[in-house]
């Protein structure tokens, strides 16, 4: 579904993506983790070409992103994205936030769009807040509305850019629950997050990035419990403080 072939990107002189090769199949849930500045968000944003790459290829749903004949607007309608800072439209109610794109892009009538929006709001547990403005919603509620907004276009792929990083700790779970149920329904998801618990439960594949390159790819047990690369071990150790490796040390 998504394929990176030797992708490279520079921001001025800084090499932010170094020779990235990655494949994501349909229905897979991929979590990208790693230290700050590793290029995780940049990698995610190249998938719907919010950031272009300077070298290499990205193929999404069979279409080459660098091909000028690719209809980027139509492709973006098939990819949903959820942002760290929600980016809801502050001048529209929750309902209107969700119905805007379906009405303008897919040409749905107002009633059909609203029906779809209400169903999605129910799915994320916010049908009672359909007329609220983003300023009146809590962070977790805003993010759930943002997820509903991206789902309204019935995308094939969902991208999540650190969806819970801007939330209060108590509000994180409501968002993660929505993401978990989405994963169970078989949505192809690429998630950049620090929520290791979520990754362990839901991810099919975990990608560890450092300094612009992918160091390790594996299943959650492979990465979190038994990392191969030195940097991955260091990262997991500092993130977890979990005595996973103590047996190893005790043996020495």
């Amino acid at each position, binding site marked *: 579904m998504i394929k990176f072939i030797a992708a490279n990107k520079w*921001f*001025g002189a800084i090499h932010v993506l170094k020779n990235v090769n990655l494949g994501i199949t349909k229905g897979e849930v991929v979590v990208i983790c790693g230290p700050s500045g590793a290029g995780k968000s940049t990698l995610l944003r190249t998938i*719907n*070409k*919010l*950031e*272009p790459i*300077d070298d290499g290829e990205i193929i999404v749903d069979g279409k080459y992103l*660098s091909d*000028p004949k690719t209809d*980027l*607007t*139509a492709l*973006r*309608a*098939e*990819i*949903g*994205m959820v*942002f760290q*800072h929600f*980016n*809801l*439209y*502050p*001048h529209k109610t929750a309902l209107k936030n969700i119905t*805007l*794109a379906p009405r*303008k*892009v897919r040409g749905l009538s107002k009633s059909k769009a609203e029906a779809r929006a209400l169903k999605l709001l129910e799915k994320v547990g916010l049908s009672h807040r359909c007329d609220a403005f983003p300023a009146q919603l809590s962070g977790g509620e805003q993010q759930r509305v*943002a997820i509903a*907004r*991206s789902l*309204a*276009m019935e995308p094939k792929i969902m*991208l999540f850019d650190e969806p819970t990083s801007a939330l209060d700790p108590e509000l994180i779970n409501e968002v993660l629950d929505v993401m978990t149920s989405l994963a169970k329904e078989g949505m192809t998801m690429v998630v950049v997050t620090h929520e290791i618990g979520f990754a362990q439960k839901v991810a099919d594949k975990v990608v560890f990035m450092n300094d612009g390159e992918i160091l390790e790819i594996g299943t959650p047990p492979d990465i979190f419990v038994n990392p191969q690369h030195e940097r991955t071990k260091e990262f997991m150790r500092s993130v977890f403080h979990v005595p996973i490796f103590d047996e190893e040390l005790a043996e020495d």
Partner: protein
Amino acid sequence: MQLLDQLANWNFYLFGPFPRGEMGGLFLNIIMAFLAIVFSFVVGAIVGYSRLSCRMYVKFPCFAYVELIRSTPLIMLIFWFYFFLPYIFGSGITIFWSAVIALSVYASAYEAEIVRAGVMAIPKGQMEAALSTGMSRYQSMRHVILPQAFRIMVPSFVSFFVSLFKDTSVTYIIGVIELTQAGIIISQRQPDKMYAAYISMGIGFWLVSFSMSHFARRLEKKIGVFDLESIRPDACRDDFMLLPAHKKDKTPDTLSTSCPPQS
């Protein structure tokens, strides 16, 4: 008795020689300011928006236009148009229209700055969110960015209107019989009413200006003040342009704002 005497010319201050002549007085100040803002709005908005482009050949003319007009005193502009317009339009053009055109050009530069500041204030994430739901650039600008930008611009526009209203007093220099000129005429023809003339002038301007800026302040409280006074934030917003800049690697339709690195 003497006080009533002093108030005798109130309709001259308010309306000028009307009905025996053209409309004038305080009313004319308000009309001139209003017309100037209306006429200059389209040009000002286009120039302000275009100034955000990353392409030098679009940005520079807009920048030059705004800076040239903002660096020239309003009196100079009025004299320029007063001299030149008769050559272009023939001698039929009245001083009123020369003044209004000069004020419009003056206003368009300031409005360009207001529009620019309003659009710049929209966070980059709004455009990204709109585009990532599959809306085209035009749709995103129309439904997401511009509605927000207008809400932000309104208080600035109102306070600019107040400022422009006060500046219309300068047009008296070419003979327009607005409030300042009315006061001067009275104080010269009827020197005993000189104090009344100046007091009327002062009160006339003060009342209109105070009530409008009061209104503007209430709007600012609702929407939030915007610092229009900053001189040079020079970032360009390629993400807001309808025709984004083409770059060497031929990736035309992207949101990258990495044209000049100081974005």
